[in-house]
């Protein structure tokens, strides 16, 4: 028990096993839902989960390692396209192509790992540039084009039902969470807390920061790729304009910031909140919802800079005071 707490990743406000339990529970609950929901609600939840998935994958590199990637959509897109090519053009088995999508974008991440040498803004811009470059390449390159001459898009036959996709996404969600927690609780994840604080120090105490970063980058790219690969057949038509658009890169950042950067639960909460808000804005304010969305962004930064996890942390502190889970020794 104590050891578990000791190997606790920064920002996970609860014990690792408990978090796993929570996730499994949530997944189980979700799996129970579909019979009671109509197809729209199932789809809504699926897309919500997709947003959460990509946000979580971003949070690994952006939140825990403090590398704000502005081109995370590139891995999402590569995943989708790799899936399209594997499944539609080469007729590879569906689930295998999903994995392939993930592997492809992980591979690209590995190729691109030198950009991890950049810091802060330079890294942000480099990822942005990567996104644009890849988008244009995919649009021009015959191999990644759709089956028709000028059409840069891919169309998928409708194979699985919405429920099926939903269960698939829930499964991926659980697997991803487990892998994330696993990573964060491993020495690499734990080390990321150190080099986020001070890289010089981290290396001074024997942490191989390069390896940590690259691992985190690849893992996050992999999950982003898998997410893209699932998204593609779900939406049934993808094109470079829609899949490599900047909004797939901005969305995860906003979601994570809403929920709270650098915490495992943050993106999940942020995703739920944002989607709910977004959904209501569609209904009520037809032409003003983007405006309101913007105002909301500003409000969040002004009033809630640490995201909703801040709120959570307060709660847990309260609740820790009752039973001293982490005794706060005040020595000043």
């Amino acid at each position, binding site marked *: 028990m104590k050891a578990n707490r000791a190997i606790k990743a920064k920002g996970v406000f609860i014990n690792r096993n408990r978090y796993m339990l929570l996730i499994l529970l949530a997944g189980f609950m979700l799996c129970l839902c579909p019979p009671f929901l109509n197809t729209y609600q199932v789809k809504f939840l699926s897309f919500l989960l997709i947003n959460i998935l990509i946000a979580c994958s971003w949070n690994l590199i952006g939140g825990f390692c403090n590398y704000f990637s502005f081109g995370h959509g590139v891995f999402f897109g590569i995943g989708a396209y790799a899936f399209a090519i594997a499944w539609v053009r080469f007729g590879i088995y569906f689930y295998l192509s999903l994995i392939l999508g993930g592997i492809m974008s992980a591979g690209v991440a590995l190729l691109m790992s030198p950009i991890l040498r*950049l810091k802060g803004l330079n890294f942000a811009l480099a990822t942005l540039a990567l996104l644009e470059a890849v988008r244009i390449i995919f649009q021009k390159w015959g191999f990644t084009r759709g089956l028709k001459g000028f059409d840069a898009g891919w169309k998928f036959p409708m194979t699985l039902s919405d429920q099926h996709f939903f269960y698939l996404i829930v499964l991926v969600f659980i697997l991803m969470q487990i892998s994330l927690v696993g990573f964060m609780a491993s020495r690499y994840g734990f080390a990321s807390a150190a080099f986020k604080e001070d890289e010089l120090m981290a290396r001074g105490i024997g942490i191989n920061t390069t390896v940590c970063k690259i691992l985190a980058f690849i893992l996050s790219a992999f999950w982003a790729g898998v997410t893209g690969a699932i998204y593609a057949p779900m939406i049934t038509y993808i094109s470079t304009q829609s899949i490599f658009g900047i909004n797939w890169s901005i969305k995860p950042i906003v979601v994570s910031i809403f929920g709270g950067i650098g915490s495992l639960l943050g993106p999940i909460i942020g995703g739920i909140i944002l989607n709910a808000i977004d959904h209501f804005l569609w209904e009520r304010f037809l032409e003003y919802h983007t405006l309101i969305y913007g105002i909301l962004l500003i409000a969040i930064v002004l009033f809630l*800079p640490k995201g909703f996890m801040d709120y959570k942390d307060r709660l847990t502190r309260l609740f820790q005071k009752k039973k001293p889970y982490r005794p706060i020794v005040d020595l000043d």
Partner: protein
Amino acid sequence: MLYFLIMGMMKGAVFALAGWGFSIILGILGIVNFNHGIFFVLGGYLTAALFALGLPPWLSILCGSVLVGIYAVGVQRLLISRVMSQSHMMVLVLTLGVAIVSREVMGFFFGHDERFLVVSGISDRTFSFFGYIFPALDVIMLLVSVSVFFLFYYLFNHTAAGLTLRIIGENTEIAKILGLDVEGSYDLAMFFCGLWTAMAGSFTVFILPIGLHQDAYWTIMSFLVVIMGGAGNLFGTFISALIVGAILFISSIYVSGYSDAVIYLLLLIILLCKPTGLFKSKMMVEKRI
């Protein structure tokens, strides 16, 4: 070829004008302003509006730019100054939100049509030089940006305000200790940022159609030239802007349709080989990152 090079550089002057604003904000406030493109677009729209009211072109350009400068100061005072203490990326998200809001509000005021002023005697005026034709507006752009550069240089090195800005850029704490008016200087920087960026937009509206949704493109382009040239380094920004312009132009001459790909790949290569940009970064941007 040389002709294309010169033409490209002229086209690049607009990036320089747009980039400088970004550069000072990055260097002195140490924030990335995603609202930057809005300055550009708003400048274009206001100029068009004023021109429609019957003002002469130069005057409408001037007024438009100044108005945008005031808008910029307003944003700084009301919003950005409140979150300066927070992490760099939060400020970035804030400006993102501001950009969204501004864009929508502009939509309500100006409508969603593009703006494009084709004025006989201005838009189609050209100089002929050794048999080569140079569009007058592009030449003026270049001249304006060069003069603005020298103006900047003077402001930064020979005026109290400029000195203050530089000190703040180097180390805000020291500036505070010295009792300098940090907030005021921030406003000043923001004003100039808005002014020059809007001026770029105002000129561009006579050259190209400007749409409400181009702000993202202009933000990214100024970001690009600034990082390429070394953040906070005005001269570097200027040169890299000219280079970017030239490359865009020449690549669209020889490999049309791939110009964007070329520029972004170039950027990637530069960032990987020389992360600090082509020229030495003058101000300690990294301090907040």
